[in-house]
């Protein structure tokens, strides 16, 4: 995973286009994001089919209930192992810095969170220049991190329930579901901001080819953008 990742539409990365856009996510970051996203949705659908009769018919797409249970476990391993491995292989620096940033809230982040509801519903909130991840994104990161950890731990207990005391297994079910609800609510808001919200949906390109429009970077992540321009350090907490 080269830090200076220039894959994508090679023909278009002319000098003129380069001035218009800036690399936000490396290939490794994008890979982890999409492995997490795709496996999450597969796990969600197969899991909901077990949890609720309302979703049960969907399991026929996976070959029935018993096949869906196997798929749920196989995908769970990918969900956990592949993303965890990305913290150690390739170019893991950006993964660790994302993790670190999610746990460090500055005053600017808190101000962004204050303005977030207004922004979310199409208004314009005032907040200071933001880093690579703004306050709202950090909240989403935290929900994803804690959701993933708790859903993984409880899932292990449920999978190997014969090896754990019944009292612990009984608690694994509510924890597994609570994590699922938190992450599902978060991903709905996340997809809205990345795909539908007029002010922020340009950010999707950061997860497709890695680059976001300069205009977007300046208005949403000014502190990070200035750092990239002045020092070449593409990571700014």
């Amino acid at each position: 995973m080269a830090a200076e990742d220039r894959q994508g539409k090679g023909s278009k990365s002319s000098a003129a286009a380069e001035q218009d856009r800036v690399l936000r996510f490396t290939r490794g970051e994008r890979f982890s994001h999409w492995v997490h996203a795709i496996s999450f949705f597969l796990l969600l659908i197969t899991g909901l089919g077990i949890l609720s009769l309302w979703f049960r018919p969907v399991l026929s797409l996976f070959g029935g209930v018993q096949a869906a249970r196997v798929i749920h476990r196989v995908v769970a391993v990918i969900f956990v192992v592949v993303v965890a491995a990305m913290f150690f292989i390739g170019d893991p620096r950006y993964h660790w810095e994302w993790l670190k940033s999610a746990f460090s809230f500055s005053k600017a982040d808190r101000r962004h969170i204050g303005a977030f509801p207004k922004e979310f519903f199409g208004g314009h909130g005032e907040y200071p220049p933001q880093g690579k991840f703004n306050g709202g994104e950090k909240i989403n990161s935290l929900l994803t991190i804690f959701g993933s950890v708790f859903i993984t731990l409880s899932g292990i207990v449920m999978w190997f329930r014969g090896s754990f005391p019944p009292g612990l297994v009984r608690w694994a079910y509510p924890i597994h579901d609570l994590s699922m609800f938190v992450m599902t609510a978060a991903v709905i808001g996340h997809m809205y901001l990345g795909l539908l919200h007029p002010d922020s949906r340009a950010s999707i390109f950061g997860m497709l080819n890695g680059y976001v429009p300069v205009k977007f970077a300046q208005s949403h992540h000014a502190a990070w953008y200035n750092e990239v321009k002045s020092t070449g350090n593409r990571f700014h907490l």
Partner: protein
Amino acid sequence: MARKMIFADTSKCTGCKACTVACKEWNDLPAEKTHLIESYQTMKDFTPKTWTYVTFIELYRNKTMDFFMRKAQCFHCGDPACLKACTSKAISKSADGLVVIDQDKCIGCGYCAENCPFGVPKVDAVRKKAYKCTGCVDRVENGLTPACVQTCQPGALQYGEREALLAKAKERLNEVRRRYPRARLYGEQEMGGTTYVYLLLDAPEVYHLPQHPAVPVSLTLWQDVIRPVGTVAVGGAAAAVVVGVLGNLLRGGYRREGGPPDGGERRSAKGGKK
């Protein structure tokens, strides 16, 4: 139909195990190899082929030995934890109090098995279905008594109307207490009143039964709090997105934006500052 009850008077049980055999016969459950567990007990737990067995406990006190025998099977709770745990609506409770697993609806997830305070339902690893004593619902609904009750020679098992049989059980308890002062009824109140009510000769712990069986707090939290609240929260997030899209439409967010984003690959002539 008024609630029925099976009175299991352990003071009359001789440990003959005819109940196990009768159960197997009625339910078409084949015999299987047994092992001596302790005393005269030959089954350790329920299996797909054995839904009821007798537990034997020998207790030595004051130079005398007491046999504590108990026919184990599903209690058929008035407030069954298995039914609450089932996400497939495969478990139902009949009017006379029998808790039955519908084999067609069961997917073998094992939520019932994990949440039963008595550890009764098990998942058949081969068929991927949960199984347990049905209370011979197919006999009872046709005016017969459960097979185990039908066969019990010493009269340790009786079937009848709950009110009448409970009164009888209390009378019997008074008699038994002269010899076993710690004797008690088990299942009158427990788990919303169980259909199998036992006259135990000693404390439940002696029989390895829970002293205060209850629907697990984790199960109530899961089914009555997390699932409804979580559903509302996810619905709320979806509703917020709809409101957000409408808000942006009304405030002209999409017009200001100047068309769909292009990832900065093309220079757009016009476009809002934000």
